[in-house]
C-alpha cells in the first residue's frame, strides 16, 4: 500500500481557487508533496524538471489544455507512465472517452467530495496509507 506522503502530485488548473480546493483535499488525505501549475505548458515545464507520480489536471485551460498535457506526457518516455487523473464537468463524456484513448488513468467529475478524490486516486495507486 503506497503512503500518500510519498506520492508527488501536480495539480493543474487555470483557476487558483480550484487548485486550492484540490490541494486542501489532498492534504486531508495525507499528501504533502504537492505542486501546482495554471496551465498545461507550465505543468509540463515543471514535470520535465522534476517528475511527479500523479497529475490531477483540468481540461479547459489556456495555452496547453489538459488533453494536450496528457498527450505530451504519454509521448515522452520518462513521463509516459505518469498517473493522470482528469478533472471534468458533467457534460464532458466525449472528452473523457477521448482522454481514455490517450491513456488517462481516471477522471474526477466536478464538484467532487474528498472521499471521491480518495476513491479515484486509490483506483489508480491502490489503497493509501
Amino acid at each position: 500500500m503506497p503512503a500518500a506522503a510519498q506520492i508527488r502530485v501536480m495539480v493543474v488548473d487555470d483557476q487558483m481557487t480550484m487548485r486550492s480546493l484540490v490541494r486542501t483535499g489532498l492534504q486531508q488525505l495525507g499528501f504533502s508533496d504537492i505542486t501546482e501549475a495554471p496551465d498545461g505548458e507550465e505543468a509540463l515545464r515543471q514535470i520535465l524538471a522534476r517528475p511527479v507520480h500523479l497529475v490531477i489536471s483540468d481540461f479547459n485551460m489556456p495555452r496547453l489544455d489538459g488533453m494536450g498535457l496528457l498527450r505530451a506526457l504519454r509521448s515522452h518516455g520518462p513521463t509516459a507512465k505518469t498517473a493522470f487523473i482528469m478533472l471534468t464537468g458533467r457534460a464532458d463524456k466525449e472528452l473523457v472517452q477521448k482522454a481514455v484513448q490517450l491513456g488517462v488513468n481516471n477522471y474526477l467529475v466536478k464538484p467532487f467530495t474528498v472521499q471521491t478524490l480518495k476513491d479515484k486516486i486509490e483506483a489508480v495507486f491502490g489503497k493509501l496509507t
Partner: protein
Amino acid sequence: MTPDAHRLDPAGSKRIHVVQGEFAVSDDPDVMLGTILGSCVAACVRDPLAGVGGMNHFLLPGDQDTATAGGPGALRYGVQSMELLLNALYRKGARRERLEAKLFGGARVIDGLSDIGQQNAAFAERFLQAEGIALRGGSLRGDQARRIQFWPVSGRVRQMALVEPARQVFEAERAKPVPAPAAGDGELELF
C-alpha cells in the same frame, strides 16, 4: 435554460431568466439576462473587447464546512458555478485578463438565521480577488431581495429592490435542493 426562459420583453430585448444553479452567456447585444436574488449571489462577468458576457446564480449550502474555508466543503458549489460561467465565456472568445465583474445579492433577508447571504457575498469577492478578475461594482449584502437585469454585451445592469416578496424569495432559495456532488463515476463507467 428552459425553452420558455427565452422571451422578448416589452422593450424588445431577448430575455433569459437565470435560475438558481444555472448560468447563461451571450454575445447578442439584444439579450438581457435576468434573475431574482435573496441571499443568493449572481456574478455578471463580461469581456468588453470580445463583446461577450454572462451571469450565474448560486447559493452555497447552509451546512458548508466553514472550518475549512476555501477547502472542499460547500464552497465547491460556488467554485463550480464560477468555473462553468468562465469556461462558457472563454468558449465565446473571452480572455481571462480582460474579464470584469459585477456582483449582486447576498442579502440577509431574514433576521435570526445564520447569514448565508454574507457567506455567499464573501465567497464571490474572494473568488474574484484570487482569480485576478476585476470587480467593477455591483450591490452585495443589505437586507432586501433584488431583481437584476444584465445586458452582457454592453455591461449595463439594472437593479430593483424587491421589498414585499423578500421573504418569499429567501424561502424559495432555501427550498431548492442543492445538487448532490458528483459521487463516483456519474453515468460513465470506464474504470
